[in-house]
């Protein structure tokens, strides 16, 4: 029993095994220890310097700015970046297979990785609080608002960590590396921008939650980042899961419920049309992107729960089976649902402009277009999701290049040649020579065409699913 005596019970059994493993490794990692110590040293130095010049009126504001910037860099940039290799290192080391063979589901593996990183970020938050309290000494501080700000930064960090952990399961280095790195650059500039300009004051004002709008804004922000973060974790789980594990159905059900509930609340609150469209688009976009980029492995284990429920179950399966064929049907369902919700707004007929609908159609088309290309080249690509994301980025970059070109020219009619890229249609709205009504018609035609082709491909693919269902029925 010598080994047993060496085994310290540093973590209780009720914690997730994955979290225990990650915490054991993470708390010993140089990256965490360095960030932790450097942050403490910097904040200590800044507070000492500020204390020396405590007579200055701006000392308190400077301390707030410095705390915000360094804390944000630590938890919004460095901590999420540590998630980049979270799953890819396990995949490379063949250890994902070993974990899948235990009782850990893919979602528990991904969630364990995420909670351990978020737990370490929470430790950083805990170390910030004393400095925040000390900063109160310098005066001119809304303690509650700054505590809410710290909480918001922490929650955003958790969501960003979910994104990097989720993307880290991708086989494409471009997706799991370049996207987070590009995000990091943008975020670093934003943090310095907000931190050392008047922007921080505005953010603190919003975090004071004094008006109903501010409270609603903060609440919606929290819900949206939670929704997007969950989608990212679910994506990571899907990418590492064996074929017998189905994550798509739950993901789609949650998206559907989120859209119905949020849409319902916004309709009842008689929200502005553009807010309704924006929120529904944000909710639908990740669900559609993932649904159209899933591989189409539908195996008996996954079909069985649907087939057991008879015709209704099989019908539901057409929308909720994992894989892009059911994903296409699900996309149609979401689009239909969002349209219905839109019409439920009081006086709906008078509240929408053609350009608002065009923008929504452009965003939908922006997802259908790479979705269609991914399905057409699907057999040749290693990972559909990576292909989808890279095509989406390429389509966005292409639109930006066209925008720069078009802005230097007086005649922009050539943009019609690129109307097959739905993002170009939303770009064309910037110039008055393109009629809103014509752009709306173009958007409907392009989206309709892409969706029709997707539907035809999906119907072909459903043949395989029908065979699986028949085999299960015959059992």
């Amino acid at each position: 029993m010598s080994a047993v005596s060496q085994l310290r019970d540093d973590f209780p059994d009720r914690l997730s095994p994955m979290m225990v493993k990650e915490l054991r490794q993470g708390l010993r990692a140089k990256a965490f220890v360095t960030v932790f110590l450097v942050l403490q040293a910097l904040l200590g130095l800044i507070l000492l310097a500020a204390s020396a010049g405590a007579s200055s009126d701006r000392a308190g504001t400077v301390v707030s700015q410095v705390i915000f910037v360094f804390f944000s860099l630590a938890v919004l940039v460095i901590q999420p970046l540590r998630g980049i290799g979270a799953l890819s290192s396990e995949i490379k080391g063949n250890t994902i297979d070993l974990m899948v063979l235990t009782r850990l589901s893919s979602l528990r593996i991904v969630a364990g990785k995420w909670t351990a990183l978020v737990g370490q970020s929470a430790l950083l938050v805990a170390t910030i609080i004393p400095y925040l309290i000390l900063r109160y000494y310098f005066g001119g501080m809304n303690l509650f608002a700054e505590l809410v700000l710290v909480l918001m930064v922490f929650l955003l960090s958790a969501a960003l960590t979910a994104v990097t952990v989720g993307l880290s399961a991708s086989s494409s280095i471009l997706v799991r590396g370049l996207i987070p790195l590009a995000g990091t650059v943008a975020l670093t500039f934003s943090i310095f921008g907000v931190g050392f300009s008047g922007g921080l004051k505005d953010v603190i004002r919003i975090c004071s939650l004094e008006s109903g709008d501010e409270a609603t804004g903060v609440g919606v922000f929290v819900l949206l980042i939670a929704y997007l973060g969950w989608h990212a974790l679910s994506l990571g789980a899907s990418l590492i899961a064996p074929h017998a594990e189905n994550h798509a159905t739950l993901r789609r059900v949650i998206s559907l419920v989120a859209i119905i509930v949020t849409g319902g609340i916004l309709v009842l609150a008689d929200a502005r049309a553009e807010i309704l469209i924006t929120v529904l688009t944000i909710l639908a976009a990740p669900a559609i992107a993932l649904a159209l980029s899933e591989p189409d492995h539908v195996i008996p284990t996954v079909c069985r729960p649907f087939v057991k429920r008879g015709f209704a179950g099989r019908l539901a399966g057409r929308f909720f089976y994992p894989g892009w064929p059911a994903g296409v049907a699900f996309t149609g369902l979401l689009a239909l649902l969002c349209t219905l919700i839109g019409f439920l707004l009081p006086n709906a007929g008078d509240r929408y402009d053609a350009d608002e609908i065009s923008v929504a159609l452009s965003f939908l088309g922006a997802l259908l277009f790479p979705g269609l290309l991914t399905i057409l080249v699907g057999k040749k690509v290693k990972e559909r999701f990576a292909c989808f994301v890279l095509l989406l980025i390429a389509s966005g970059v292409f639109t930006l290049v066209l925008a720069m070109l078009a802005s230097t020219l007086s005649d922009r009619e050539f943009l019609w040649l690129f109307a097959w890229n739905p993002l170009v249609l939303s770009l064309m709205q910037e110039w008055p020579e393109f009629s809103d009504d014509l752009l709306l018609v173009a958007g409907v035609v392009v989206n309709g065409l892409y969706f029709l082709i997707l539907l035809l491909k999906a119907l072909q693919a459903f043949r395989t699913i029908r065979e699986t269902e028949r085999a299960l029925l015959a059992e």
Partner: protein
Amino acid sequence: MSALKVHNLYRYFGNLQAVNGVSFEVPHGSVCGFVGANGAGKTTTMRILATLDYPTMGTAEVCGINVVNHPSEVRKLIGWMPDHFGNYEHMTVLEYLDFYARALGYKGKERRQRVSEVMEFTDLVPLAERFSNKLSKGMTQRLGLGRALLHDPQVLIMDEPAAGLDPKARVELKHLIRVLAKEGKTIFISSHILSELGEMCDSLLFINAGRIVHHGGAEDLKRGSDGLGGVLYDVQINGDPQAVSDWCVLQPHVEFLEGRKHGGRIRIETEDPAKAADVLARMIKDGLRVVEFHREQRNLEDAFIDILGRIERGESHPVMPPPMPQETNPSLS
């Protein structure tokens, strides 16, 4: 009921036919060696059995449980040891095993007990506090074996466990496998080192280009059986060695395989020793001055190459050639 049963298993990756109609059974409590060149389909077959991949067509069962339909049940029965697995940074050997024990659902005292037993069995106790990524290849393989044994599986599937090990580590691993076999575990093991498999295994499966080309006992192969009912003999004569091949051409059920300095290798299409004695008697009667006539003792590498050679020359066929699938539906098993 067999511990492992694979029937008409196909696995296609696009146009690549990794596994092409494989069928075999491995009885409970036996050690079966799985032999084939790189890319022959060994790892794919093993991964399907370990529920880590799925077949394009066909069935695979572990202790009678279908690996596609009931992967969770199968996982409780198998221990999987891949050819290569990474170890974690900043994690000791003890913590590594503790993590997997937790992941397998062991709690408290039972978890500590299980980790301790496995560490003692694999002789990892002295390495308990060493970081798992600082272990030698041999220690890493012992750690991998320990992890695979944590839940006391009935069947161990080991993919190239001896690859890259030094001779001492190989001997240690072989010893552990022998102990496990004595305990009644079914072991399905692939390796390139055929001589070692021959010592450990009750039966050998040879796979080539996704098809099983031989399934039989290691001793048969060593004694010169070709797995197709024939026996190989080495014949040496006093005189022109060409006479042996000339003589064989005229004989039914006797095949000349290759010439040697004083004679050649021949194959007699029966395992009956009396028939072999008849052949020898006829040789002498026909004037061949036979100085040596003995059943071939080959190493397994030679046997493997021999079987592959005969298949390439069209002189032999894969075991149980299966019908080609009508369509490649990944969902049907």
